[in-house]
């Protein structure tokens, strides 16, 4: 019978190896709407406290070196504005509105205008589509928050830039060159394509009947059917912006290819959420899964899941995904809220107000998009927590 020990030992050791390496526990602490609202408010407060002269925001902070980053990104600037306007639109937060309007001054000072369109760009550089697309998304949320139509013409100008970048196959080129006065051929923006999709879908919702639906639907078809091949992604690219865009287009704007793509996207975000829930800051989890996702990483998973959940509730063709998407979303939101630096923890750092409400990487750095994406992801989870279907 001693020989029987070999298969028994192989069975037990194999099961242990699977547990450690492949299926560690997915840790999803319970979560309530109240704690999610509080975490979102703290994230927004970090961004608001970062308002600097000239319409800028604090870009990043290294708490170990006590250093504020001197870098800046206009695309992330627009993303921060979008998240703050969104908070203003969804929660009536006046401070968030004022802080986002602070950033709008920076946008208006960096517009390049040609042929009836406007791009948000640094004047000497190529104009990337991402910054303009997120500026559109920001301004649409501003309109939803305030009902003030004073920026509608700017929304149209920025959206026309996105349409000017669109190719006959529906794709949008990633940048426009001021030196040639033309879109840069063959360049695609990793996130800009999805951002443009969302922006055009939002403009169509805000300004229906102006013809924005055509470009948005052509872009959605490209994203759903050709983007991964053309832009070189082996698996479906986990694009939370595209998830927002599909949700915004809604069931009437989506054909079967887009629904099939939404399903694939849900699978990728579900996988990312599960893998993230298996990660940890110490022990075997840290060894097997590496560094836990950054605030931006957690936030984008939440944003992607939330966009697709919203679509699954509205579109019966995806209704079977609602429950699982809601479950992953709750888990991601709970982990996002728990990873945030709370006031007590922040008090232990040299500048507590630059630490409080932020998500730091293991090396002690946080960046505006950590807070921006987490804020957006948490806000997008609230409908699930306050009685949404699923």
């Amino acid at each position, binding site marked *: 019978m001693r020989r029987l020990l070999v298969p028994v030992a192989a069975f037990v050791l194999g099961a242990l190896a699977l547990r450690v390496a492949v*299926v560690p526990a*997915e*840790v999803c602490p319970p979560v309530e709407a109240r704690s999610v609202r509080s975490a979102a408010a703290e994230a927004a407060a970090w961004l608001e406290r970062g308002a600097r002269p000239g319409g800028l925001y604090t870009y990043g902070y290294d708490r170990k070196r006590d250093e504020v980053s001197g870098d800046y990104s206009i695309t992330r600037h627009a993303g921060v504005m979008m998240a703050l306007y969104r908070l203003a639109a969804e929660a009536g937060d006046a401070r968030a509105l004022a802080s986002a309007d602070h950033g709008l001054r920076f946008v208006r000072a960096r517009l390049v205008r040609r042929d009836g369109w406007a791009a948000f760009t640094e004047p000497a550089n190529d104009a990337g589509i991402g910054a303009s697309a997120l500026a559109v998304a920001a301004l649409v949320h501003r309109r939803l928050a305030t009902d003030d139509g004073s920026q509608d013409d700017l929304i149209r100008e920025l959206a026309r830039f996105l349409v000017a970048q669109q190719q006959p196959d529906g794709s949008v080129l990633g940048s426009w060159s001021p030196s040639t006065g033309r879109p840069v051929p063959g360049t695609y923006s990793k996130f800009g394509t999805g951002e443009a999709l969302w922006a055009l879908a939002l403009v169509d919702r805000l300004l229906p009947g102006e013809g924005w639906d055509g470009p948005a639907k052509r872009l959605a078809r490209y994203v759903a059917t050709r983007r991964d091949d053309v832009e070189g992604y082996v698996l479906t690219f986990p694009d939370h912006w595209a998830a927002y865009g599909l949700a915004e287009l809604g069931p009437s704007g989506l054909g079967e290819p887009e629904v099939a793509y939404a*399903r694939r996207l849900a699978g990728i975000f579900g996988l990312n959420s599960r893998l993230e829930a298996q990660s940890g800051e110490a022990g075997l989890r840290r060894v097997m899964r590496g560094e836990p996702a950054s605030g931006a990483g957690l936030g984008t998973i939440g944003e992607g899941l939330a966009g697709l959940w919203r679509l699954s509730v509205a579109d019966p063709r995806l209704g079977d995904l609602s429950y*699982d998407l809601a479950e992953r979303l709750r888990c991601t939101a709970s982990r996002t809220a728990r990873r945030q630096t709370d006031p007590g923890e922040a008090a232990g750092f040299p500048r507590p107000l630059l630490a409080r409400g932020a998500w730091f990487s293991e090396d002690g750095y946080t960046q505006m998009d950590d807070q921006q994406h987490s804020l957006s992801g948490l806000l997008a989870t609230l409908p699930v927590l306050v009685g949404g279907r699923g």
Partner: protein
Amino acid sequence: MSFGFLLVAFVAALNPCRARLVLPERRAAVALGALIALGTGAALAAVGGVFLDWLDVSPESFRLAAALVLGLEGARALLVARPAAEPELAGLGAALVPVAFPLLLTPGVVALAIAAGGDGVEAAAIGALAAALLLVLLTAALPRGTRADALLAAGGRLLGATEIAAGIALAVEALRDV
């Protein structure tokens, strides 16, 4: 997981051709061992969902683990067509060792049963496992000989490849599901 998929996967994981090369010649012990394997597999499928909950593992993630087990087990069958003889308990005890374990309750069978339980398709899993075990019993009735053993070894390799394919299909499903 459909019944069809489970049937193919259980047949591949049980690998009747490969098992035939080492199953005892005592028919009663083999039949009783198959019943024990069916009962254990059914129990695992029935508690699979609760078990995965207890482990804090989502069914989708466990499917990936089951896929890995099937892939590795299939590769072993593909590379080593003739398994080594297993120690036997005397009399009907052989139904327990080696028939039920380790020959029929393979890691792949156990992982599949739990995965099916996690997915809520326990009935389909039990039906598919019963059909696959019947195939094992039918194969066990085949006469042995040089030529027959060569054919069984080739069949074992083919089922090993099938098990790898089932593992890949399960992995793809696990990656696509939310």
